[in-house]
């Protein structure tokens, strides 16, 4: 019985960066515990579509295969998520795969997530510790705060929250939820907070956190369960204070 079981896939494909997308259907023999990546590998081994025609193998991105790198994000049955943890047994068929529309398509399901790297640079998502001489150990972080910050640090820049957000689209410059939360993470770090005003001001620039309209899709969609909307509200408070400091002047830019 189970030998004849099949899995149907409807895949949105695109041959080059600027060619038109089209759909192609594939029918694969079912194997227990299949996930979307293993199905794509199956197609790669034998690139024949549902009509029995030979076709090109599908292009996609992957790396860790355990939902920590974020590279394999795509839209699966309408929901942006990681392909490596999308189990075929739990998906309704035909399983529809499409690239995340927020990002430029390179080919098929492979997208260019460069804008997120640019966003990280913009908000200074790092802690500057380099100097011309040995600076010694930094201030200690209270353990419970470290545990709390660890949750925020789980972000893998997968882009799912950007895809879910109604305000991240081609008509808007909105930076997206992940980077607002990253500013909170780096500003919470005892050494990172020495540049907190720089990150906040970068976050308040055009396309910054003010473009959030509170649909709260991001917190529902994030595969890492990061409290994005709490971070957004917290950064809104910090930005309110920062804007007053900028306007009226203050002796407390970093404390």
């Amino acid at each position, binding site marked *: 019985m189970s030998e004849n079981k099949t899995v149907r896939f409807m895949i949105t494909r695109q041959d080059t960066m600027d060619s038109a997308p089209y759909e192609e259907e594939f029918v694969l023999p079912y194997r227990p515990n299949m996930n979307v990546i293993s199905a794509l590998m199956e197609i790669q081994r034998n690139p024949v579509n549902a009509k029995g025609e030979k076709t090109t193998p599908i292009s996609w991105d992957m790396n860790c295969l355990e939902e920590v790198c974020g590279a394999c994000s795509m839209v699966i049955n309408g929901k942006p998520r990681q392909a490596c943890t999308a189990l075929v047994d739990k998906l309704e068929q035909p399983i529809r795969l499409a690239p995340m529309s927020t990002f430029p398509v390179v080919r098929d399901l492979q997208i260019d997530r460069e804008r997120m790297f640019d966003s990280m640079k913009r908000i200074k998502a790092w802690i500057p510790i380099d100097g011309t001489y040995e600076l010694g150990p930094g201030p200690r972080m209270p353990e419970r705060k470290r545990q709390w910050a660890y949750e925020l640090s789980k972000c893998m820049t997968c882009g799912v929250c950007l895809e879910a957000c109604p305000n991240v689209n081609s008509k808007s410059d909105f930076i997206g939820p992940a980077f607002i939360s990253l500013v909170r993470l780096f500003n919470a770090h005892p050494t990172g907070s020495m540049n907190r005003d720089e990150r906040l001001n970068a976050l308040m620039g055009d396309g910054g956190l003010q473009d959030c309209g*509170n649909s*709260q899709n991001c917190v529902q969609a994030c595969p890492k369960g990061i409290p994005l909307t709490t971070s957004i509200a917290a950064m809104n408070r910090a930005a309110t204070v920062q*804007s007053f400091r900028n306007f009226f002047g203050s002796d407390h830019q970093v404390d």
Partner: protein
Amino acid sequence: MADNREFFYRRLHSLLGVIPVGLFLTQHLVVNHFATKGEEAFNRAAGVMEGLPFRYLLETFVIFLPLLFHAIYGLYIAFTAKNNVGRFGHFRNVMFFLQRVSGVITLVFVAWHVWETRIQAALGAEVDFHMMADILSNPLMVGFYIVGIVSTVFHFANGLWSFSVSWGITISPRSQRIMTYITMVVFVALSVVGIRAILAFV
């Protein structure tokens, strides 16, 4: 502040929605509610507002300009969103969508309402109980006014919720949930006040 211009406009938009436009809306509905106590009570209450000193100055800077800024910028904000309620049917995403829909309905309603009352007044008509009773003698208009008022009040009440997130007043999920309850009570209460006033003219 030069490179934070958008931040400033967004926060101004948010602030103006509550102060003064939201406050004016509340006051306006409360004054109209005097219509339930009869024609004379309404005309007296409206007369007090009309008799305020510096009336045109107040109307321009407390109502007209703030509303105009909020409406125009709000329209721009509403149309830069790519709504996805079909894909993400969570409560807050639905509210996000309704905030934009109700904003547009409110704009149509308020424009019509200002035309019918303030502009006509400027053209010589007398704004009083009779004017409203006249307008509302048409059952279609009663429907239009009720939809308009409910939409405006929803937009204001739900706007209070997002205002408190935008300014960082409610941060934790629990505080945001409690604010949802509070703002929905505001929505129901102001809707009752508004609809009762309308029905008093019918």
